[in-house]
């Protein structure tokens, strides 16, 4: 309740007129964005017209672009987006979404996220013991260690966009005294990872990554 009151106070205080939008922080823009969204939603509702469903993305679309793309999905937030490769630093590849979120992959392993509110700051790669790093509320780093074991789980038909692939499935069970989770990876015969489900952290849960080209 106090937090809600603080938000109300903040908006009341900061949604004021100013010559300097930058200094007014994100509050003004948040308010404006929320109002725009609300107004647009009301217009749609009043019109009685259902918004047109987005056209499904296909591999034919992918073929038209030179950009390296992955599709990411966060089931917990019911959100998905395409992310484009933007940088390679020693084999750590970073992909950006249009919404200015990023993921970093080492091979097919997720090693970091940014712009997710609760980010995975860093993650170790390789080895039986794996370390995840997060920021706590005080901006201090917190580590989370698990031991992981990978097993082959046969082959499966996996759909990515409009195609179905016959892929080998690998399951990786990670655990410590308080937590256990399972990462899954689907790999082609040539060794290319086509799809993976990986644990990001306590707040974000899992991320699904599909490699599109």
């Amino acid at each position: 309740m106090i937090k809600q009151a603080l938000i109300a106070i903040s908006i009341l205080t900061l949604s004021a007129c100013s010559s300097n939008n930058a200094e007014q922080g994100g509050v003004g823009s948040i308010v404006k964005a929320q109002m725009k969204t609300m107004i647009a939603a009301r217009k749609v509702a009043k019109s009685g017209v259902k918004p047109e469903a987005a056209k499904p993305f296909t591999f034919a679309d992918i073929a038209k672009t030179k950009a390296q793309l992955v599709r990411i999905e966060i089931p917990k937030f019911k959100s998905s987006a395409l992310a484009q490769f933007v940088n390679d630093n020693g084999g750590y590849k970073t992909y950006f979404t249009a919404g200015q979120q990023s993921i970093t992959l080492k091979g097919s392993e997720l090693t970091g996220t940014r712009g997710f509110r609760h980010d995975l700051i860093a993650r170790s790669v390789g080895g039986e013991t794996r370390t995840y790093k997060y920021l706590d509320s005080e901006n201090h780093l917190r580590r989370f260690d698990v031991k992981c074991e990978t097993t082959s789980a046969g082959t499966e038909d996996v759909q990515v966009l409009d195609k179905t692939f016959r892929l080998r499935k690998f399951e990786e069970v990670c655990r410590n005294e308080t937590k256990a989770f399972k990462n899954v990876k689907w790999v082609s015969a040539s060794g290319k990872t086509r799809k993976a489900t990986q644990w990001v952290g306590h707040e974000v849960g899992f991320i699904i990554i599909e490699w599109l080209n």
Partner: protein
Amino acid sequence: MKTFLTKPVFIGCASILAYSVSAIALQSQETRMAPSLGMFGTTGLIDMPTAESQPDAELTTNISAFSDFTRGTFSFQITPRLSGSFRYAKLNNWAVSGPGGPFTNPDYFDRSFDFQYRLLDERSYLPAVAVGLRDFMGTGLYSSQYLVATKNLGSKLKVTGGLGWGRLSDTMDVTAIDSTLGGSPNIGSWFRGDVGGFGGIEWQTPVEGLRLKAEYSSDHYVLENELTTRDGQNRMRPAASFERKSPINLGVEYRTKRGMQFGAYYLYGSEVGVSFSTALNPKRNNGFVDRAPTPVHARGSNYSGSTDWTQIAGIQDKAREQLDKELNKDKMRVEALHFNGVHAEVRIQNRKYLAVAQAVGRTARAMAKVFPDSVESFTIVPVNNGLASSAITIQRHDLETLENHVNGSELLAGRVDISDVGKLPVGGLRPTDLYPRFTWGIAPYFGIQLFDSTNPFALSGGIRGTAQYQISSGLSVSGSIAKSFVTADKNPSPSASGLEHVRTDIGQYNLHGDPGIEKLSADYVFKLGPAVYGRISAGYLERMFGGVSTEVLWKRADLNWGLGAELNYVKQREFRQLFGFQDYSIATGHVSAYYETKNGFEFQVDVGRYLAGDVGATFSVDRSFDNGWRVGAYATLTDADSALFGEGRFDKGVRLEIPLNWALGTASQSSIKTALTSLVRDGGQRLTIDNRLYETVRDSHARKISGAWGRIWQ
């Protein structure tokens, strides 16, 4: 008359349970009941305390009421073992006799402070043990001291037993402390006189969040029941507020998952009471959303070390333009720039990130993107209100190799250099389009005046226009005008203070100065050396005083302490808050010492002459969190005659600062500041200056930067 459980039996049960070795206790380690708040707004049963502590840094607010008594309590878990509380109580129909005879039905407002320290942690076979002081200063209406033990028996049951002095002594021989003590600690009465026992149990019901409580109270509510107190204060009760028929209190409480607590109680065999609590904790993870940073553009393994690029015509302007473009994505600007073939220094204005480490990390990434491969090291200088506060130097190789390292933050922290910063090297570029710069704003304001002895809760609000003309880096003219729409006191009575009315005429300023010029001053901040900062301000400095204010601060970026001095000559402004002055003028000033501990406590001592001419010192301590939260307290002791000072005896209060990014979930440097002061008096008052040097530079120094270093890769 004790109704159903006699005192010795109840206390005996509680004590035996609390101290006994129990087989059940062995099972209880991992699933203890969370501590709850009692009717006094502190961790406890109903009226009685327990030995538990709230989670570290927990901030709780509690309101409780029964009979003629309403209490509002703000508590803070200062350290894992030490908690402090500030309470404001209203007692209806509390007659006070004076020279003209007793007033009829006046309400009495009482302020009190508590401390509790947990001496022993709960173990398998031993209870937690705590010692506490309730209402340890001032008139001591609730003055009591206690030693208490609490033990969990399994995950559903908790027992408490304790010994109390003062009000908790389980006797009728209770007196309020001599009121002439005012706001001074009543040390002489602590743990003296009769001692009584108290205790109780808590049971977590099968319904999640619902618990039942029962206690034996050793508080006889003597002061609330007797017609005349025995302390000679001429304070009389015209009628007993309630009849204490029983020492047994019963309660039911419900706690929501979000930390709100609702309680209902049957008290002393005759009354029904209610309470409500809510909690905040800076340590509870909130996070905020921000655009992902630009990844580090790493140089290839065979990068060119050629510095020929430095000879390109207009390279400085081009570099600045590109860097500014990158930084602008995060609401930062290039204030100044200097580079050669192997090193680059950029001075930045950061208007977005509270954590300087995050601004540094983003600037370093921008520099890695913009500067050619030969540049091996980056120096980033945060400039705050025109003051270049520190120089953070990062090796480019470290930036590249540690970006994705699992221990990259820690390793980088060990390799950066944080030092003082001098003048921009010769040949450096200062963009000409940054100044002059005019900014303005119009915003509503509001205020809540709490805990005045005659009007404990009052709202004020209006609209405020602000403007600043930044002539050059460090030199500005700024002002604000306010018009109120809601006034706390429409007919303020003249101040009766025996000291110069430096603050107590606030009502007159509110009445006659609406609309008024709150501030109109010119400020110049500058550096006298790499670690020496200066400020000169002149004009209408604040609502009540105008004149000249000067300040100097010595604070090395790598040290956790500093020294400062301030000298002002000011004259009191007229009530209309235009351009005139009253007759009163004074030279005032302080020398200050600042010290930060590694675990986030900041201490400050200011010694000097205050606005009313009184001489003394202000002692402040703040717990400063690395996410921008601050919770603190201060006390000012001066040579002002305590009789002239008025109620409260000396200036004291608690203050709270909450960063907006915590509340809103988006990056912001703004924060909400509030203070709970006991009473506004004329003694111990300093000039209100909003750009004092220590507050301006401290966040860019090593202690604060390393505290929030985790954000370097954010």
